[in-house]
């Protein structure tokens, strides 16, 4: 299964939940903490952490497409 990740940066509230859950996939900008997507097609072993990031993101700023 492929998992494609998209982030909606203007929605991001810089909570850092995603960075704590999946640091291989998400980071934050230094100045304002907005999300940086490091890997938009993460490997399978990271899928659970990425899904959890999307679920708990307090801004619903992470969108996933599975194919």
């Amino acid at each position: 299964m492929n998992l494609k990740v998209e982030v909606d940066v203007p929605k991001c509230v810089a909570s850092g939940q995603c960075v704590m859950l999946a640091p291989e996939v998400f980071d934050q900008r230094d100045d304002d903490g907005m999300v940086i997507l490091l890997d938009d097609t993460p490997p399978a072993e990271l899928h659970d952490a990425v899904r959890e990031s999307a679920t708990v993101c307090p801004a619903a700023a992470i969108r996933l497409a599975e194919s």
Partner: protein
Amino acid sequence: MSASSADTLRRVVIVGASAAGLTAAETLRRSGHTGTITLIGDEPAAPYDRPPLSKEILNGAWGPDRLPLRTEADLDALGLDTRYGRTAASLDRVARTVLLSDGTEVPYDGLIVATGVRPRRLPGAPAHTLRTLDDALALKGRLGPGRSLAVVGAGFLGAEAAAVAADLGTRVTLLEPASVPLAHAIGEDIGRVLAQAHLDHGVALRTGTGVTEVVSGGVRLDDGSVAEADTVLVAIGSRPNTEWLTGSGLTLDDGLVCDEFCAAAPGVYGAGDVARWHNPLFGTSMRVEHRTNAAEQGMAAARNLLGARQPFAPVPYFWSDQYDMKIRAYGYLRGHDEVRVVEGSLTDRKFLAVYRTGERLSGVLAIGMPPKSIRPWQRSIAAGAPWGGALSALAPSAEATA
């Protein structure tokens, strides 16, 4: 999940269709629950996000189309039995049914209570509150040059609304009974920083001023005088929506009382603003009205309903946007004994402050600081770090001045 719970848990009912309820539904499906999930919500719309209501929706930066928490396709994929526009009227735990306001009974094997809170109101004439999208749009239509607004309550919601209204050119009076806004939550010194920001933006902040009622053309103050305003927003906190649980045998005490697993009773779990649970990380019972907690607790409640038996021990997180300030805080700041600024300065409104409760590090609050300077503190709070140890490891110079 244990086989036994999966076998007996065919029908899950989630009462409350906002962030906590939605997250619970999503987590149930992801964890392999194939039975029915009924999602009951009192608003007509599919789950939407509330924090932008007092920010981007109120200032007009976003339209309501930006608010849905999930796309229609994502919701469809969850296969939910949705009952929007209906409230839960009562709970029968013997028959295991939820009675809805439209008279229908919904049977359950597992129940998640995520009914949230509603705004407290003042007696007298009608006034605006700010909880729903309709509330935000109604208030937005009353803001702008030539208009005046009285905001009752300088908590986070009142402060955000006052900031947006002032930025839009509204003449704003902000009324607060305490001598320093938010002092009980974030400390007096930082409360004064936020108070000064209101004054700098032309808001008439009146502290030490209670409001007794809403009157035609304003609000009556506790000295009997009237503060005039075309529009009144009452932002004096909220009450948990637990009336429908009265008589159910569940414990209600400023929220639905839950244990460290978010369980209120066997097969009944609480999540989000309505749930008062025992957070083992801080060793205290808490009810947290923050967006991040709604999602995290919705997830925890769903997992535990399925048999995970994991204590819910989060570090709460909240943020608030006021004027050009982005305020971010991790931890449980309420009841703190000491606040110390370890980076930056209060007068620049660019600083990082940490909180001590007893002998431990209990919180961190930052304005205008990079996330990488906040995260080590967040980790230390999550680890239950002692105050002295955390300071010497993360802010040796601040410790030296102690």
